[in-house]
């Protein structure tokens, strides 16, 4: 059942743990599904000896995908009309991430009703890794 404007008010918020103890295998899984085989995300030898990082790290798009689950769990998988983020810090194997999605506006445009949300994902140290927003089409 689709979300209604009357189900939401500004400031309503949801937080979910979107990944617990991120594994290198999940980075490989994401590389295979998305087609982004950048060795920065899967090749510990390259990344430590050539690229100069302490370990492989997550694709930004994986963190964006993990975070987006909290939006789609709330509004429905077919209701998202905008989703945008900035990648503010890298995500590493072993990280656990929590995403908070908060209603920032409910508005009408061209006879349709939309809800706007802020999206923020933090790691286990409270450091923000993704900061963004989303918009969903909802029922009036």
């Amino acid at each position, binding site marked *: 059942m689709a979300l209604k404007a009357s189900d939401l008010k500004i400031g309503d918020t949801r937080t979910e743990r979107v990944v617990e103890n991120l594994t290198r295998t999940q980075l490989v899984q994401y590389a295979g599904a998305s087609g982004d085989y950048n060795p920065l995300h899967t090749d510990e030898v390259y990344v430590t000896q050539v690229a100069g990082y302490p370990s492989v790290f997550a694709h930004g798009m994986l963190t964006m995908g993990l975070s987006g*689950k909290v939006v789609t769990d709330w509004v429905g998988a077919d209701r998202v009309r905008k989703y945008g983020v900035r990648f503010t810090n890298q995500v590493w194997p072993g990280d656990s991430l929590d995403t908070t999605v908060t209603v920032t506006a409910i508005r009408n445009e061209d006879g349709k009703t939309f809800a706007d949300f802020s999206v923020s994902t933090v790691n286990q140290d409270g450091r923000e890794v993704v900061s963004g927003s989303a918009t969903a089409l909802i029922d009036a």
Partner: protein
Amino acid sequence: MTKITFPVEASHIMMFARSIGDTNPAYQAGADSVAPPTFPQSVAQFDPDYYLRPKPGQPWFGSGKTASGVEGKAPSSGGLHAEQHFEYFRPLRPGDVLTVEYGPGKTWEKESKRAGKLTFRERVAEYRDQTGELVCRATLVGVTTERPVAQG
């Protein structure tokens, strides 16, 4: 610029949803599935020249016998993803055969304490279906750093 043909397939959606740890049944409904919001990025699979996929007979900058298959490659080359923005006009569904076209984007520079000079490049992709209808617009901002991003 190049146009890429991106056939949206149910099994690809299922694999993609698994890779982001999302068990939503909407992504495992076969022909009735919808695609997760970040799925359009996997158009990379259908770009014959995608530079972040190893190709037979060509050197690859990841490790093999040596730590990199391409000598003299600068550290942190390949760049990082700074921002990503999607606008959807409807969800992507199996059976869509999308034509993806990249338009020009802005380039700008910024100085950073953690990584030196940053060069940002924006790339806008439009995804259109078989009828020419705009389904999704994706804006990627990539950043090339002067040195690896300092941690801590």
